[in-house]
């Protein structure tokens, strides 16, 4: 489509992933596999890539985690410019935005963006040692407040305020499990019933174990180029990026958010018109020059099943408190009005932090090309991703065919 932002389009020439799982190998291997798949998909030679951006993770114990250069060396030094991004779960979007900015500035023509992760088991917990000035450490010491407990706070509000039920949350898992059945990159490819979810142990009331996503190994990569470079490569109508929203919150942020003890106070300055998560999508729509009604497909961060419902409302795909209605009516299932997480989402992947926001864009690219075999949203022309990184990192990407 054309519009206000059409001069700021960049082309997605290639996408690639290393399947998600618990492979127990180096993140470099997943990243290189994803990069080679994306290069092959695009027809671009690695030697012609003039900018590489790596999405990294700062989790303790990762030797040599200076991601951009690590991937560049693994692919063989080619003299490209290099950058590295870290924005927690939003890392991939920030890495993509870094590549886009250089391309739009005319400083680069063809960029490779890579993110990959190898994850530990269980709850993501802080590293050892005493750090009394670190809220991410203190929340465990003083409150025993885990990530699922934060997800559960919002899930509980959906129940108490909007009449959501544990069965609704389970239905999100059932839907996403079905979506991901045929996705070759998904880690979990198995039907799940609502009874399975409800029979799994409660982790943080009202969320059950099967409501909450796992952590996974995986890698995703994208070849991003100028529209002109795409034409030179013989691709006249590539899937393109219309917007990347990497906004921070606006003070005062009055919604309880991981890993904090409290919200900002609205005592001196009134709360902003939009919550942080609402503002992430709003900025993306504004940049792309489109409305929520224009969206055909969404990939949102279902860290927990209830979080998918939150995002559907935060992206204004329906009114506040109505996501369950959409879900129950089958509107968010493939074939419905606005399919959400046709890839299977985090429910089928588990989270590989620095790769996940890129994986969302890979999926939308396949959807918009009509190549999402076994999970295709028919006729999809515009897709949106949404995700939020710890400590105030927005992440939403809008792509169009």
């Amino acid at each position, binding site marked *: 489509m054309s519009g206000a932002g059409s001069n700021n389009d960049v082309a997605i020439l290639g996408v690639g992933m290393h399947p998600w799982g618990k492979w127990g190998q180096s993140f470099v291997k997943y990243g290189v596999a994803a990069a080679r798949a994306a290069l092959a998909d695009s027809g671009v030679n690695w030697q012609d890539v003039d900018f590489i951006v790596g999405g990294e993770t700062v989790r303790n114990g990762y030797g040599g985690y200076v991601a951009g250069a690590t991937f560049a060396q693994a692919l063989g030094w080619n003299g490209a410019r290099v950058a590295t991004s870290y924005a927690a779960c939003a890392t991939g979007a920030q890495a993509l935005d870094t590549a886009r900015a250089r391309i739009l500035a005319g400083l680069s023509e063809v960029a490779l963006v890579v993110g990959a992760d190898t994850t530990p088991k*269980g*709850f993501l*917990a*802080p590293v*050892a040692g*005493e750090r*009394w000035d670190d809220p991410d*450490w*203190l*929340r*465990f*010491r*003083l*409150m*025993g*407040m*885990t990530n699922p*407990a934060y997800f*559960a*706070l*919002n*899930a*509980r*509000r959906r129940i*108490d*305020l909007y009449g959501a039920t544990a069965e609704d949350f389970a239905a999100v898992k059932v839907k996403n499990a079905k979506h991901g059945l045929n996705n070759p990159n998904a880690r979990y490819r198995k039907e799940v019933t609502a009874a399975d979810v409800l029979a799994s*142990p*409660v*982790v*943080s*009331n*009202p*969320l059950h174990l099967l409501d909450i996503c796992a952590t996974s190994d995986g890698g995703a990569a994208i070849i991003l180029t100028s529209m002109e470079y795409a034409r030179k490569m013989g691709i006249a109508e590539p899937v393109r990026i219309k917007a990347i929203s990497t906004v921070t919150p606006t*003070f*005062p942020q*009055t919604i*309880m958010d991981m890993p*904090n*003890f*409290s*919200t*900002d*106070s*609205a*005592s*001196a*300055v009134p709360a902003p018109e939009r919550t942080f998560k609402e503002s992430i999508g709003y900025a993306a729509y504004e940049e792309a020059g489109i409305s929520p009604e224009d969206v055909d497909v969404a990939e949102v961060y279902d860290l927990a099943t209830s979080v998918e419902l939150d995002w559907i409302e935060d992206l204004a795909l329906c009114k506040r408190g109505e996501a369950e209605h959409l879900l129950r009516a089958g509107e968010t299932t493939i074939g419905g009005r606005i399919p959400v997480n046709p890839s299977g989402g985090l429910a089928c992947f588990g989270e590989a932090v620095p790769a996940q926001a890129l994986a969302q864009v890979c999926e939308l690219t396949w959807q918009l090309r009509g190549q999402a075999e076994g999970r295709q949203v028919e006729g999809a022309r515009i897709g949106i991703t949404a995700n939020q990184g710890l400590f105030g990192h927005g992440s939403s990407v809008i792509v169009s065919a």
Partner: protein
Amino acid sequence: MSDTATQAAGDSVTPAVAGWFTTGPAPALIGTSCQSCGTISFPRETTFCKNPACSGEEFEDVELSRHGKVWSYTDAQYQPPAPYIPTTDPYVPFALAAVELPEGLVVLGQVADGFGVDDLKVGDDVELVVEPLYTDETGVRTIWRWKPTTTDTNANGAQA
């Protein structure tokens, strides 16, 4: 030789974190008020005011309201990982609440001993209490917690 001293230290009851809450019969969280714009913060702000329109760097301690309304709540059915310090073996789950205070902010905390998610609803009234969190080499370490004050109505609701 130092048995007596150790014993004495072991008997002491002190906050698990210094300067975050007062103790005594009417305990309260200690926040700060920006001397330039009046923004309230908890935990205490000591560096820069978070208000983007304010460059304030001076803050005055203020005690926050001891009463608030439940914004949301949950529990920890699995033992949280370190640095959480478990106090019982086997582990006993506890509840958590996010509470909206009249100062315009929401503050998290564990829920008082003896209360669980069935005792809570969004919008319920709670008050701040101070209770033991764990015991270390210095003695009992305490923490603020939220205690339901409208449990009668909720007890009925929970049975429904």
